[in-house]
């Protein structure tokens, strides 16, 4: 019951963040039509993985889902931002945004998240081993 409540609260919180972000980025979304879809897909997958991870909290599966979440963030950023150089064309004007620095920082942070998940899994297994009666 507590897990479900925690997952629900986190889900709602992330939805609010998504809502605020989409409102802030609305002017840019008119210029880059795929941006809204990109953010939407990211939040859906992230929230699903987060809720499932919270629901399986206290089990080894939680760490699998957390690792999947971290890997998903890395993969999605790399694919959606096309290596960091984002280009779009409107009629005769081509626009290029170089997000490589942003991408590198985001990937490093995701790797830090992945490392944390691995440490959590090791810690979980260690604690399980400690309390296992011989």
């Amino acid at each position: 019951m507590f897990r479900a409540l925690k997952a629900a609260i986190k889900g709602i919180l992330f939805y609010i963040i998504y809502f605020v972000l989409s409102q802030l980025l609305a002017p840019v979304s008119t210029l880059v039509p795929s941006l809204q879809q990109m953010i939407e897909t990211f939040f859906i997958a992230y929230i699903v993985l987060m809720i499932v991870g919270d629901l399986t909290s206290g089990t080894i599966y939680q760490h699998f889902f957390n690792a999947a979440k971290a890997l998903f963030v890395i993969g999605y950023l790399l694919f959606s931002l096309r290596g960091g150089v984002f280009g779009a064309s409107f009629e005769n004007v081509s626009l290029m945004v170089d997000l490589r620095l942003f991408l590198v920082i985001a990937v490093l942070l995701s790797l830090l998240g992945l490392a944390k998940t691995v440490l959590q899994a090791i810690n979980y297994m260690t604690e399980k081993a400690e309390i296992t009666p011989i």
Partner: protein
Amino acid sequence: MRIPIRMIGIATTFFWIFLIAFAVTAVYSLKDVQFDFGEPQTGTTADNRLFFSMPIKIFNRGFYDIGYFNVTSQITSGDGAIVASGTTFVPVIRKGEEITTSHMVTVSIGDLLQSNRNYLFNNTELRICESVGMRVAEMIPVQASTNFSVPWGAPLYGFALGAPEYSTYNVTHLRVVVPVSFENHSFFDLAGTVQLRMFNSTGVYAGFGQTSVGARQGSSYDGLVEFYVGASGLTRSGSFEVSFLSSVFNYGPWVIPYG
């Protein structure tokens, strides 16, 4: 082990919040940056080069400074050769700051026409590639570019010499009158001198004449060049070496046969 894991979690969350907030506000603040490109102007510089000037006004109402703002123009001919290029660079535009600058590209018409006489006599097109670049929050490079064609009007469009008319001046010399006509399709007024060197069919120099010409942009010129030649060296056919001299450009000589 729980404490280090928790510390990593806190640090990661903090950096994520900072990164997302920075990215969103940087993108959001772009809409508050106002660019105003004024009407392009043309004219001639002191060293008789043609210039294209465009005033640019930038009002940065965003949350961050804008760095490395640059506007680059490159004019190329139909065959891809670079005719002229110009860059305007503003190192930093602080938030809340309004700056006005002027983007200028100068073209040496003389060099352009000497390199390709097609520009002198035929209307054609020039390709212009414009790019605007900047670093949002001095960190995220953004560049917009476009290219388009502009018509090039030949300053001596349809230049032609009419058939020379001869009349007796004295016992030894003839008076020669050569009609000259052309249309000035260029975007600048033309004032200069047409010089003719007359050669007979064997290539022997016969005489020289010149006249002042003037044609406003979009208008035509019809005039006469009058000069005197020795009757003995004249033949029914031959050639003129034509040169055009003006403050904007000099061109020639080029050969036009007669007879």
